């Protein structure tokens, strides 16, 4: 019925088309594919591709968006790397990535594995661990600001209670400690989210592997190392990308808890970008920061692919 293309691998494909009549006319026709993809693509182009392109374009200018901008080429990027505030913000972001990776990979995996092995109260823990990630970031930031408050915060009161009153301080105003205080909140908020992702991956593993391992006398750790971990590697790859890009882009907690202060000590790239654009009116400079942020996120995808390469991919 349909046209006979040349033999080989095409044949089986074509025969499937012949069996499902109308599907052939849709899926086989490149124009139809384009038509169906077009609406979503237009929205994507308008709200994502075009702004990104314009952002890259604006980063080559020195502009406050009111007067015509001055073309400065790559000067913004060069200034950025000589700007100690930016390098400090970059360092803060990297610390945040490291902190998030520690909490959201091994720790989340530990919890996921425990729940997977159906310890007592697994369902309860699953819900409780996941709850913080559904609370809005600003609310989390405000709550923890109160916990860290110097005068009436929970943390200081607790320290006093257990006799460590000397350690009390105004946590979020300490330029050395404030960032770590924020990182702890990030770790707490999303550990459940990544735990759920990994748990779902673990549940997809065929239980016959575990039964075979039991028969062979493998310990729990051996089972994890040889069965669970390798089989969830593809998910871990995606998870790692989520963690790294999320930490690089982080804005709401930092903005609410310290505003990037004191004196830029807890500034991350996104809050510094906001400061440069809206307080100092240097939009071109802020766009350059945005471009660098985007490039770093893209690199993290490549990095994650490399680290989590499994046999399936090659």
């Amino acid at each position, binding site marked *: 019925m349909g046209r006979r293309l040349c033999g080989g691998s095409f044949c089986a494909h074509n025969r499937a088309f012949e069996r499902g009549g109308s599907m052939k006319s849709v899926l086989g026709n490149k124009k139809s594919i384009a038509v169906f993809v077009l609406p979503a693509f237009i929205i994507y182009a308008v709200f994502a591709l075009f702004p990104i392109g314009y952002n890259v374009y604006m980063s080559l200018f020195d502009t406050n968006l009111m007067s015509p901008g001055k073309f400065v080429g790559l000067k913004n990027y060069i200034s950025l790397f000589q700007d100690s505030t930016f390098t400090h913000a970059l360092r803060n972001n990297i610390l945040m990535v490291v902190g998030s990776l520690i909490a959201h990979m091994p720790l989340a995996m530990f919890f996921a594995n425990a729940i997977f092995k159906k310890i007592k109260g697994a369902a309860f823990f699953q819900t409780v661990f996941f709850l913080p990630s559904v609370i809005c970031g600003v609310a989390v930031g405000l709550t923890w600001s109160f916990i860290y408050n*110097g005068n009436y915060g929970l943390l200081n009161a607790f320290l006093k209670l257990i006799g460590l009153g000397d350690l009390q301080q105004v946590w979020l105003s300490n330029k050395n400690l404030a960032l770590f205080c924020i990182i702890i909140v990030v770790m707490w908020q999303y550990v459940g989210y990544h735990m759920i992702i990994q748990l779902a991956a673990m549940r997809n593993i065929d239980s016959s592997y575990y039964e075979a391992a039991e028969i062979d006398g493998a310990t729990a750790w051996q089972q994890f190392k040889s069965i669970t971990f390798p089989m969830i590697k593809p998910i871990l790859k995606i998870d790692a990308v989520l963690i790294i890009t999320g930490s690089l882009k982080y804005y709401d907690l930092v903005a609410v808890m310290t505003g990037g202060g004191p004196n830029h000590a807890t500034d991350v790239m996104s809050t510094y970008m906001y400061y440069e654009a809206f307080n100092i009116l240097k939009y071109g400079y802020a766009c350059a920061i945005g471009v660098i942020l985007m490039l770093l996120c893209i690199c993290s995808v490549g990095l994650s692919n490399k680290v989590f390469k499994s046999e399936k991919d090659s």
Partner: protein
Amino acid sequence: MKRGIAILLTGALCLGLLAGCGNKGNADSSSSKDSKEGEVLSMMLNGAASDAYVEGYQKLIDAFNESNEYGVTIKPEFVSNSDYKTKLTTMMASDSEPDIIFTWELGYLENFVDGEKIENLQKYLDEDQEWADSFNSGTLEQETYDGSVYGIPTAQCMATMYYNKGIFEKYGLSVPTTYDEYRKVCDTLLENGVTPVALASTADDAWLVSQYIQQLSDGIAGNELFEGIKAGTKSWNDDAMVQAAKLFQEEVDAGYFEKGFTGVSGSEAEALFQSGQAAMYFNGTWEISNLNNKDVCQVADDVSCFTMPPVDKVNANVSVGSLDNSFAVTKNCKNVDAAVALLKYWTNADNAAMLLYDYGRMPATKFDLDESKLSSLSKDAITCFNEQTALTPWFDRMNTDLGNEFNNSSIAIANGEDPQATLDNLQKYAEANE
């Protein structure tokens, strides 16, 4: 059954969506006269619902809407101080700014004048000499760029040290006239377990610390330091400024400010003073209406103010201060004549009187004072104000970029950073961004 629950929950979520849509219109404008024939001019002002003077401004605008000869209706929107800069900047960048805007003077307005967003009002002042002459000397100059006036000030202000008369009497303290006396007053209060000065220093309220340091620097080097920094002939790490920062740190270490003040926000610090837990509070005269208001300020009857005494007697009565509540007309405005009429109305003698007597706003125009109508705090503030020989505007008004960084540096100093190193960094930054 399960499907029914799912449909019910989905429906409830959708209702939540609709709830958000409905109320948008009522949030900003409280003027109900939209049905009037004439055109509408949009106006954005600085003020939170908790600021007492917002009521006065609303009354003034309503009166203008009823009586103006152009038949225009002004539609005001009040935006809180911490959000104002972001909101206006975004609107300016997207060309959607309102017709009349609140603005700060000097460098702040200059950004927008250079961006060709603001109407030149010089010709209106030239035509109405009486109006032009009614302004106090030194006011219009701060909003003049290239020989033309772009902004109209409606008030003046200075930073003053508010104090609680009751607490002072209780410990037998009198208003200090020299810096050493000021330190002694603080020490006495400390010995008696009272917080001497309420201060805030979170990132958004950084200017509260920098105005304190600036006031100290005014006392050390007078007006010349500010003018020098503004003109670029003096540096941010000038010895006088470093000395001011060091003195401030001494005060911090002596414990003059409330415990944990580095994490306290502006409103919390003010609440400390208003509830009588702190004896003194350093802020601008715009706070008078809040401090006079018994609903908000429990110690309203006991509040008075004095000028912070200078470190060096020769620089007496040089304080941080400037214009307040200036307005500019943007190029989006289709009826500039009507907008200017509003500004003339705002600064006329009757309204200046109303704003002063009822809301403590010191006028920018020449004015015959009827002392009997002033609250005692207003009287004290005006006395202080009239004694000043020079006013140095806040640094973040002088220059947006460097002023903001000075605020940040002040926070660092408040947190214990070395003043010399911090100010050296600031100077390096200023030179790099010439």
